[in-house]
């Protein structure tokens, strides 16, 4: 049980006053940006990346992890009270949560979400504690061929799952990959797509891309569209759960965690799929199916738990294989790299104490978040009354600051603006943003590993299927490609008989069970 003793040492370090302060700062910022529409954890971590020049690794990684977890908590507040999910995987909670809030049960919905997030976050972190070292040991044997297969699998699933349609997801992914091509090629030293501009020689900084695609795209899009009146549902009573709420919630929390963590920790998933799955599972199992669509508490508790457990799961491939499967994970990977740390199988042996401190801080952060979010939820809800113009104008200031502070120049700012306009076009065309960020990070990795593999085999492509694991991964990829197509045909048949074909049915992945 070396993990246990390592974890105890980790707690020792994470409980130092300074690290507690960083964790508190992280979860507070995380909750705030999760609540505020227009800023997500990925963007926030990207903006704070320049801090890595100054802080020691433990401090900034603890803070970033706090932001990551906090964003999940805060997002649920927004989706419940405002019906516009403030953060990636919270949209399913909006389905039932907002209905509950409109019926005056907002406090109960918020409590179910917060406690569920805590339960699932803790279960997920326990899973991470025991799974990560095992996966890391296993992954030591991964060479270029295994990485190629892993990346290819992640590519297919990300474009299929993160978008409304495979075509749109693939378009976004390709845009990211293309941006990732810019700069000097690692294997040959040749400059690609730099057009002789010195500021493009070293590639476009991940911070610039993330900030442009998220912050600028969102602000431009806001400027172009404006919004109708959003109503913030008031929180009437204290955030407590009645006895029957508890009875209905806890199985949903556990089921959500059981779905969320394994799917999140696959080198493919992200946090979106398990929330959909959890929603439909809860709906199917509930004795009060008629309440679904009108504010069923299970429909909040399950997906929220799934969301947070998956968020912990995503850290498994990130830390042990160096494979980010969500936008926030991709940015956190960059944070590791700016310390010269390469997430991967060696990370546990090289930087064990740091990692265990980080994992211990996740437990602590979860407790802090529960305290921050249950009694103080009204304070967070007040953030929603900040006028949109102020939020977006501030986002612009943060965005330009983040770009400039990451070693930027005027040229970097102009690149930022150009990419922001691209993101506006993507918004208008309803092309999702997150796959582009994943493509930006994974694209160059896939290319380099592919070329390394072929160099190792002196050009024999059979090296790509030279181990049992690679074969398994390629088969999985083929299945991931085929599944949405099969599901689509099946659903089309069902749709024909039911004579109600809704546009969103083209979405890949599990059906989100549209409300009746």
């Amino acid at each position: 049980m070396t993990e246990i003793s390592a974890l105890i040492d980790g707690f020792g370090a994470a409980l130092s006053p300074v690290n507690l302060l960083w964790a508190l700062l992280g979860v507070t910022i995380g909750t705030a940006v999760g609540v505020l529409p227009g800023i997500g954890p990925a963007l926030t971590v990207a903006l704070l990346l320049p801090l890595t020049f100054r802080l020691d690794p433990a401090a900034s990684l603890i803070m970033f992890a706090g932001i990551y977890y906090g964003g999940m908590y805060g997002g649920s507040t927004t989706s419940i009270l405002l019906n516009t999910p403030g953060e990636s995987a919270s949209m399913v909670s909006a389905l039932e949560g907002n209905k509950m809030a409109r019926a005056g049960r907002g406090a109960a919905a918020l409590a179910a979400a917060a406690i569920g997030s805590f339960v699932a976050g803790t279960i997920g972190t326990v899973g991470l504690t025991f799974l990560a070292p095992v996966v890391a040991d296993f992954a030591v044997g991964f060479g270029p061929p295994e990485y190629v297969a892993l990346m290819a699998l992640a590519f297919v699933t990300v474009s299929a799952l993160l978008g409304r349609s495979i075509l749109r997801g693939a378009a976004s992914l390709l845009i990211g990959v293309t941006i990732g091509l810019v700069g000097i090629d690692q294997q040959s030293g040749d400059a690609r797509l730099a057009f002789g501009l010195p500021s493009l020689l070293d590639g476009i900084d991940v911070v610039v891309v993330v900030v442009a695609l998220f912050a600028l795209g969102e602000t431009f899009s806001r400027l172009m569209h404006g919004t109708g009146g959003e109503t913030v549902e008031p929180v009437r009573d204290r955030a407590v759960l009645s006895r029957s709420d508890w009875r209905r919630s806890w199985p949903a929390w556990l089921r959500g965690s059981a779905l969320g963590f394994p799917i999140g920790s696959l080198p493919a998933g992200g946090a979106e799929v398990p929330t959909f799955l959890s929603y439909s599972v809860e709906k199917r199992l509930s004795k009060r199916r008629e309440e679904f669509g009108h504010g069923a508490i299970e429909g909040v508790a399950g997906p929220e738990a799934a969301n947070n457990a998956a968020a912990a799961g995503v850290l498994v491939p990130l830390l042990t294989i160096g494979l980010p499967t969500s936008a926030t994970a991709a940015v956190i990977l960059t944070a590791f790299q700016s310390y010269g740390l390469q997430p991967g199988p060696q990370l546990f042996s090289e930087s064990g104490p740091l990692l265990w401190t980080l994992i211990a801080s996740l437990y602590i952060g979860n407790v802090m978040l529960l305290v921050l979010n249950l009694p103080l939820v009204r304070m967070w809800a007040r953030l929603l009354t900040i006028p949109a113009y102020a939020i977006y104008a501030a986002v612009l200031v943060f965005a330009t600051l983040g770009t400039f502070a990451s070693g930027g120049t005027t040229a970097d700012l102009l690149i930022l603006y150009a990419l922001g306009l691209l993101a506006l076009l993507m918004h208008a065309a309803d092309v999702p943003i997150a796959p582009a960020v994943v493509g930006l990070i994974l694209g160059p990795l896939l290319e380099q590993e592919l070329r390394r593999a072929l160099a190792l085999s002196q050009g024999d492509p059979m090296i790509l299927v030279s181990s049992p694991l690679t074969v398994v991964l390629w088969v999985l990829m083929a299945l991931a490609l085929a599944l949405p197509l099969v599901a689509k045909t099946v659903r089309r048949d069902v749709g024909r008989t039911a004579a109600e074909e809704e546009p969103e049915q083209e979405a890949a992945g599990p059906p989100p069970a549209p409300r009746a």
Partner: protein
Amino acid sequence: MSATADTPDPRAAQHPAAGERAAQDPAAQPSAAPPAGAPGRPPAAPAPPPFDGGSDRRGHQATAALGALMAVFGVVVLADAASLGDGVGAALVGPGGFPMVVGVLLIGVGAALAVRALAALRTAPAGAPAAELKGRFLRLAALVGALVVFAVVLPYAGFTLSSALLFTAAALLLGAPHPWRTAAYGWTLAGVLFLLFDVLIGLSLPGGPWGF
């Protein structure tokens, strides 16, 4: 903002959502945009392929434009890849190999997006009227102008003043009601950020002649 608030734009209600999710949410669709596209669709005609997209003309136009842009970039990527050498030593896939594949895919996916969007355009309900669209683009141009001015002025005027100006311009364009109060907020925010990042954390931000 007042101009667009009452537009029957099915996407408007959806858009304030955060970046990561805003545009890719299958589940929120029924709640956020009750089939706004449906009324315009003649029930007798066979339903167009459920090619989601912004379900009005503007959305399809944007999709077509993005597709075309991707295809053009695909050609650029291919041209760039063709200009690269074969690489050195035993590297069998040169620096141009992977970009070739990306270029071809860009052209393919871009063309597919554009073609499908153009096909859907024929049956799609009209979006925002042209006059209003012009106003929106003017505001966008003004904001981009403000950003460019910020980039140019930053090294000379220092971080605090430039950022305060950027905040004020952006907030006013987004519909802030009180110019002076907004400027005061902008100055406060920029000043706090300067104190936090430059003085406390020690990242050097451009100072301007007066040191902030």
